[in-house]
């Protein structure tokens, strides 16, 4: 609709809108289902292609005979993975590792958000801790393990501690960046409306920071997941067969197929969570009109 003949076309636009809504309401469920399947296929086929290419290259290396005795091919590995999926141990490991991931990441979100909120709004705190947070973000979290093991021993607490140290700085930084890049014009508009301090923060700065915050969450998740797997390889707790423990056992037994299976599981779990963040990110961008397609 051209802005030029706006007044004339507003009723027409409204009618068209009503018509579109009516169409939406009358759409039969199966038609909607077909559309959904179409969309799913559009999203899926590049990924299927990528997996096929990886498997192909893998098979080629296997066929070439490089390290033939110890390097398994995709067929053997996948059947090993399939076998493990039939048994309870792998599922239990997935459950234990996922639980740690959820708890650790949740703690990191809470701590990161609180620290980010304080540091972004209080100038002396920012001067004191701003660069420290960025420094922590670049610190390889595996370096914290000796410190954490001495502090908490071989325990879940140690792993959670390192997850939080790995993820919270990214989350805090995401929020700080969001606050910093709140458009000045919107801030002026908010102040003119009479939003002050807490209300300005709650109704303007926080929602304006949301996209950067989600980006921080996504990055924080990547760090949390890395810290967790590293931690499970280093901190092996009895009777807690996590994915890291299975991987470590496979290493001890030189079970290459088993180790590769676990690596695939870890990769898939990481990708699934990353996709969840991707969906959240796209939903926000669509809502804000930041996508080119709307």
């Amino acid at each position: 609709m051209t802005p030029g003949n706006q007044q004339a076309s507003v009723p027409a636009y409204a009618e068209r809108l009503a018509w579109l809504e009516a169409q939406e309401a009358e759409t039969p469920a199966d038609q909607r289902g077909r559309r959904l399947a179409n969309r799913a296929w559009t999203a899926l086929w590049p990924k299927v292609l990528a997996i096929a290419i990886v498997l192909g290259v893998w098979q080629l290396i296997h066929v070439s005979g490089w390290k033939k005795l110890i390097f398994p091919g995709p067929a053997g590995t996948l059947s090993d993975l399939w076998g493990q999926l039939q048994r309870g141990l792998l599922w239990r490991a997935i459950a234990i590792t996922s639980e740690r991931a959820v708890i650790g990441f949740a703690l990191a979100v809470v701590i990161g958000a609180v620290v980010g909120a304080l540091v972004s709004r209080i100038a002396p705190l920012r001067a004191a801790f701003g660069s420290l947070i960025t420094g922590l973000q670049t610190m390889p979290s595996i370096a914290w393990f000796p410190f954490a093991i001495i502090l908490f021993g071989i325990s879940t607490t140690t792993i959670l501690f390192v997850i939080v140290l790995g993820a919270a700085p990214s989350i805090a930084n995401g929020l700080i960046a969001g606050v910093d890049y709140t458009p000045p014009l919107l801030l002026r508009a908010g102040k003119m409306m009479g939003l002050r301090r807490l209300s300005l923060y709650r109704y303007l700065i926080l929602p304006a920071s949301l996209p950067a915050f989600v980006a921080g969450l996504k990055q924080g998740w990547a760090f949390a997941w890395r810290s967790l797997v590293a931690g499970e390889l280093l901190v092996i707790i009895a009777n807690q067969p996590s994915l890291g423990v299975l991987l470590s056992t496979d290493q001890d037994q030189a079970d290459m197929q088993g180790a590769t299976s676990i690596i695939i599981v870890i990769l898939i779990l990481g990708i699934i969570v990353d996709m969840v963040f991707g969906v959240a990110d796209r939903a926000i961008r669509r809502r804000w009109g930041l996508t080119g397609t709307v």
Partner: protein
Amino acid sequence: MARQGDAMTVTGPRQAVGEMTAAVRLTDVSKVFGRGTSAVRALDRITLDVPSGEFTCLIGASGCGKSTLLSLVAGLEQPTSGEVSVLEGGRGGGRGVALMFQEPALFPWLTAAGNVELALRARGLGRAERRQRTTELLDVVRLGGFGGKRPHELSGGMRQRVALARALAQDADVLLMDEPFGALDAMTRDLLHDELDRVCAGRQLTIIFVTHNVREAVRLGDRVVVLSSRPGRVIDEFAVPIEHPRRIDSARVAELAGRITDRLREEMSHDSR
């Protein structure tokens, strides 16, 4: 009131209402940005009274400090010297000053209705009242059916109308408009002039409207104040004795606009000498 707190520390205690007939009064106001040799004098000893209910247009070449002047009245900035005072509570329950920008400055995470409602929430209105007032205000700017749309789903003119509804939601006595239609095409602008006339008709609004479009100023204003550039000074003012409804392409508007343009040209040639 808290929102005007900053401005009031400059203007001093509220003056006795009886002796202050102007809704906005600038007395000998100067604004200097920066210090020492790099200092820029944006406004120089501006004295201007805007009577309650008047539609005043400020016009001048770019760099004449028009926007700075609005920021001072809005309390977003403080004058270097002089006094800015805004008559408060003129209608009882009035809430000072509302400001509209060249960009709509709508919040992209809220719907059109949400944007209007937030201004009402900032005033502390309850939920039921907020909902009712939001509907009314969107009707006022003829966006009744578009409350659920997000800013990016609206056209430029519609967004600016939401911004107008949001400014009206503040229920301010004084509405400051900083080239609000400057980014719109001529036809949309023309329609929004009519809308603004209609909206103002039922309200005792004092408006200061900044523009560099002389015809727009004559089309809308009761009075056109001409500012010089660098530093901004009031050099002339013109009453607009043309009855409403006006048309931007009418002969009388064109004639007065021509005279004002001549005055501006004269001033600019002084400058360049």
